[in-house]
């Protein structure tokens, strides 16, 4: 792949309810920050992509509500529905196909959504929806399948919550920095066994944006560019009964593709930092394994030993991750942005020293059915 750079990033603060801001307000704030970060004006942007979801926004053609706020006036523009890792992947395609710069933004207002109803609508309308199954209950099935298969414990999952909520103290945009203990997480009530309240990401309001550029256009940018080294995405079967939920086939396929593009043959040796979408604590363990960064079934022990802590051998979600801030569709783009900030040395209070190669991961659909993996690096 020819080099594409991330030259600007912008994230709004993620809060439970940003009642004073419309989706357009959030998008305008994120885009303005990304452009300022790139040292660009909107006139420097050749093409704009947005990300939204009609269900979450309660609007048909949800992109319409942000068409002015994203600065797309008189520019080529398009919309990818779903997680920010997928939309940003398409933004990279636009740059590779001849556009010099691309602004991509994605927004989410969880405070205006009813998550159980909206995520119930992911499921088959005839055979599955009436069961009441939605994001949390389907994930509980996956958590149970995974934990039973490998003997992963709830305490090991709780380590993820404690670590990530603690990391969030260093991240000013995070919604829920919390000082937790394993006992505290274990004592929180079950939402859907084995998932407890403190295993769950909150749902928040926020938006984020990135500016992507060709190598040529990146030269004009004052700040340090971060380079897109590899992208892979892949989709598993839809019906939960058609999948072995303890497996991570789609993630493994996505990671293989991204690593091969990036020239990564030994991810455990070559990846310095990971930002992944742990909407529930068990997911951090599963996704780490799917990304080839732990043996299958070993991520629980690996995590409980502190290896994924901010100062561990492989920091995972140094930003606090999704469990500390989850503006749903924005979550994946924030993983990319956090990787970029770490590589740039601009992550502030949660900076990890010496990050050269970082991996970001995002997902669409129930139980991580569709997975996207990015590899970012410090040089083209």
């Amino acid at each position, binding site marked *: 792949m020819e080099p594409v750079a991330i030259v600007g990033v912008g994230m709004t603060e993620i809060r439970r309810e940003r009642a004073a801001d419309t989706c357009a307000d959030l998008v305008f704030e994120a885009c303005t920050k990304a452009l300022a970060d790139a040292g660009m004006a909107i006139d420097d942007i050749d093409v704009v992509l947005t990300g939204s979801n009609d269900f979450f926004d309660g609007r048909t053609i949800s992109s319409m509500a942000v068409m002015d706020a994203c600065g797309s006036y008189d520019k080529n523009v398009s919309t990818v529905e779903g997680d920010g890792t997928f939309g940003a992947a398409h933004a990279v395609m636009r740059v*590779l196909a001849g556009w010099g710069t691309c602004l991509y933004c994605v927004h989410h207002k969880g405070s205006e959504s009813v998550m159980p109803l909206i995520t119930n609508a992911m499921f088959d309308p005839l055979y599955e929806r009436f069961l009441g199954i939605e994001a949390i209950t389907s994930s509980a099935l996956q958590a149970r399948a995974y934990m039973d298969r490998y003997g992963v414990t709830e305490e090991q999952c709780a380590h993820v919550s404690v670590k990530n909520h603690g990391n969030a103290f260093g991240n000013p945009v995070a919604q829920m920095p919390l000082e937790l203990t394993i006992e505290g997480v274990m004592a929180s009530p079950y939402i859907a066994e084995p998932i407890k309240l403190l295993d769950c990401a909150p749902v928040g309001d926020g938006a984020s944006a990135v500016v992507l550029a060709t190598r040529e256009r990146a030269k004009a940018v004052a700040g340090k560019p971060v380079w897109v080294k590899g992208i892979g995405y892949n989709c598993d079967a839809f019906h939960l009964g058609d999948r072995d939920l303890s497996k991570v086939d789609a993630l493994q396929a*996505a990671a293989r593709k991204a690593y091969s593009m990036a020239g990564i043959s030994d991810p455990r040796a070559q990846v310095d930092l990971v930002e992944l979408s742990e909407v529930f604590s068990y997911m951090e363990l599963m996704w780490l394994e799917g990304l080839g960064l732990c043996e299958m079934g070993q991520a629980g022990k690996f995590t409980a030993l502190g290896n994924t802590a901010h100062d561990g051998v492989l920091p995972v979600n140094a930003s606090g991750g999704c469990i500390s801030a989850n503006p749903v569709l924005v979550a994946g783009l924030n993983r990319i942005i956090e990787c970029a900030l770490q590589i740039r040395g601009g992550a502030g209070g949660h900076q990890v020293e010496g990050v050269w190669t970082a991996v970001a991961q995002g997902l*669409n659909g129930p139980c991580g059915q569709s997975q996207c993996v990015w590899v970012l690096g410090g040089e083209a």
Partner: protein
Amino acid sequence: MAAKRVGIVGVGMTRQSSARRDVYGIELINEAVRAALDDAQMTRKDIDAIVIGNMDHFEGINYVDTWSVDGSGALGKPIMKMTTGGTTGTTVAMGAYYHVASGMFDRVLAIGWEKNSESDTTGAIITAFDPFWDRPTFGGAVAGLALEATQYMAETGATEEDAAYVAVRDRKNALNNPYAHLRMELNIEAIMSTPYLAWPVKLGDMCPRTDGACAVVFASESIANDFPSPPAWVRGLADRHLWAYTSDPYVNQRVKGGTWFPAMERATAELYEKVGITDPLEQFDVAELYLPYSFAGLRYMEALGFCERAGAPALVRSGATDMGGKCPVNPSGGVLSSNAIGATGLLRVAEAALQVQGRAGDRQVPGAALALATGFGGCYWSDELVIGKEKPEKVRG
């Protein structure tokens, strides 16, 4: 960086009707996918990535990309969903084009579909408008179009009969398209005698609600070159989604002294400059335009540069856009004959490809080599592609 050149090597479309009760959504998608793969002489294994689009609220399915895997064939493959309202089909086509033009994928399947029989289409469209400013005024798709038609008639002196000519033309063309939903020979009097939906727009002026799907295989240059039959080439593309409020076109024209549809004018200017079009009526052999209602067949001809402002009634009545005319518009019967919304824009691209490949059957425009395809939607947004028989030197952006 330069775009890789991209060819269209397979087209599949379903039979369209007001209610395809014989299939559910995933089966409808699969019908188009199988047809496109057969046409491309490929199997599911050959496809590197998939782009799918529809409008969520019509079928009430969230995350259609992950839901539809059994129909799209996306198991173990990259898939993403792209959605922009009425322009969804052209957005999907452009998205699939960029997947290939980027060099990241060699064979990409674009899918657009809709099952309007399972939806309250107008109920869903109402929610597109801003809840505070637009929703109380603009009920569904018809009201905003009626405002446009009224304004167009006042501006140009065009008549309801001029618009009816477009409806007669497209519906008659549909007689040649075995996939079309409404296939009927009507005359202007018949259109004029249909009831008003919102003056001056009558039932006979409007597109139907349709169940249908379309799939198109986009391929990289080397694969398209080696394809047994000549591919159709993407020669250029441009789009504008300028506005967020349905009242914006009125404000732009009446308050700011601009025009009603600058999105189409601006996209057209960019596209024609990129592709080298100076006289569209002469240079295009055929056009497949997303005309959601008959009056669009007047104003859009002007916005697309086929004639001067206010010149469209004379242009279409001259027969220049009829089959056998200088540049036939909508040989397929167009949107007035079939409107499975998420498929509609992609069908324009598919029809354009069939035309320049000389494979359009009874609706073929003899010798067609250069075709224009458009998508309309959102808030007076416009997506435009030029599809050609000849491979382009290069494609910009």
